[in-house]
């Protein structure tokens, strides 16, 4: 079993898209998939693999800085992967344990997205991860709003999206940090009971580079879909607001188990839960529609949820 990422190079990812992902899309009659993959082809155009890093996001920031200082361009879609991270963290500096065996990294995306479409970006990694898990045989994978991926109700993957403005040229980037528990099957005490890995669910090890190819190919597809839909929308006349149901929202709803559940909401729901409500829908812009006990609804665009335990 090859658990190394060393074989993961852009040309292998290109081949994987052409020989596995694209035929799968055609078989499932997904429209325009060839064009969509072309739009997303820059994802993983450069892949740097490290045996160990402190934080992948810091490495990408340093890379952008050093490119600008040396007068070279930053390749859009550059990806940093590491076998392990020493100082990884989740949101609000929560512990994120990243030992060998997992898929840890950061993807750099130049901010070329229309303002009406940026909100859909954070939904993409959850969809890509969930689909890759299903393909690997983990049929219980679901998404919890916004993009936590759960296996058997425990967190298998987490994603962080941070903006970064380059120091010299003031170019805006989205940095997508990701942490996927794949073959790492032991967790520190504070994460036991709430975190899980793919190998724990499947009862076997997983070929890490194959899983990474699947995840990255799906990121390519959905980022391509976002850009493709921008073009389609502009051709339909565009406007101030995007009023249709975006195909990314549609796919997110199919993969998520959030809607129809009673949830606890908070900006930092672990430290400071704010209220409980019923998750009734996803708004057109990706916001979570919460129905309160008095029947009124509010839409949250920022924050996080935890599922309430059924009594």
């Amino acid at each position, binding site marked *: 079993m090859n658990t190394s990422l060393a074989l993961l190079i852009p040309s292998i990812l290109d081949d994987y898209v052409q020989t596995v992902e694209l035929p799968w899309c055609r078989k499932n009659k997904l429209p325009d998939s060839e064009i969509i993959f072309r739009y997303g082809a820059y994802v993983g155009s450069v892949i740097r693999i490290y045996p160990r890093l402190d934080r992948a996001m810091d490495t990408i920031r340093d890379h952008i800085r050093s490119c600008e200082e040396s007068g070279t361009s930053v390749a859009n879609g550059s990806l940093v992967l590491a076998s392990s991270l020493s100082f990884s963290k989740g949101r609000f500096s929560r512990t994120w344990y990243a030992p060998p065996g997992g898929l840890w990294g950061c993807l750099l995306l130049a901010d070329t997205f229309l303002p009406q479409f940026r909100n859909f970006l954070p939904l993409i990694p959850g969809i890509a991860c969930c689909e890759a898990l299903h393909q690997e045989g983990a049929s219980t994978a679901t998404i919890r709003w916004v993009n936590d991926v759960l296996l058997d109700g425990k967190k298998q993957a987490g994603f962080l999206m941070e*903006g970064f403005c380059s120091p010299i040229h003031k170019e805006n980037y989205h940095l997508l940090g990701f942490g996927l528990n794949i073959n790492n099957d032991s967790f520190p005490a504070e994460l036991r009971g709430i975190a899980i890995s793919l190998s724990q669910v499947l009862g076997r090890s997983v070929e890490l580079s194959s899983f990474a190819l699947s995840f990255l190919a799906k990121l390519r597809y959905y980022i391509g879909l976002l850009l493709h839909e921008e073009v389609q929308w502009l051709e339909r006349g565009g406007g101030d607001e995007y009023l249709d149901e975006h195909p990314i929202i549609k796919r997110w709803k199919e993969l998520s188990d959030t809607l129809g559940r009673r949830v606890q909401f908070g900006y930092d729901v672990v430290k400071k839960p704010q209220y409980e409500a019923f998750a009734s829908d996803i708004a057109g812009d990706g916001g979570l529609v919460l129905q309160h006990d008095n029947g009124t609804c509010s839409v949250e665009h920022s924050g996080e949820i935890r599922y309430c335990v059924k009594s």
Partner: protein
Amino acid sequence: MSDEIDFDKILAQYHSDPYEYIDVYASHTGKIRFLVQEGDEVDAVSGEWQHIPGTALFEITRERNSKKITATINGVISSLGVEFEGKFVEAGEKLLTIRHPLKKREIIEAILKEVLYVFRAPERAKYFFSPDVQSRVEKKSDREVSVKTGDDIIIMSLMKRDTPVYYSGEKGVIHSIYFKPGVSVDQGAPLIGVCPLEKLPLIQKIINKVKADWDKKD
């Protein structure tokens, strides 16, 4: 920011017309159906989590997608574009005006917004001070926290996407904070009011003057 402020003129304006007039525009193109009439009282959004919507003002329909637009502030409908009833309007068309009665605190804030440098929200999102500014605000008072153009002062949080917001404007100290952590702020709404250090006494003078004058009036 001017050193010379004609307090008497400003205060006389607020005494004679202690209201703010808020125009409500069509957010996008669509067909309009009004749900209020001129003279109606309207309520603002309320509830602990801002989950009780304000009074429904009008319905705008585009491509069979109907949307009720509600009041974000309380007051009375002082003018209504009745000529738009049942008509298709362009985005940005002014549809109605709400006359909102001002409280003393709001009058002080309104005057300060005219004299402070107001830094506004780039998008509708939740805003937080960056950890460095937050710790300085907690250790000192916000009025001792200085900012200058290019400082990474605020984090904009939207759909689990955190983006640093860089301050651009006059160098000074943070005098007023208009956002609350965890509460959504509309695009263009003020986030902070910044005052050059040497102008702080003038600002305090404004506040004292308005308070004294308003208390006298009451």
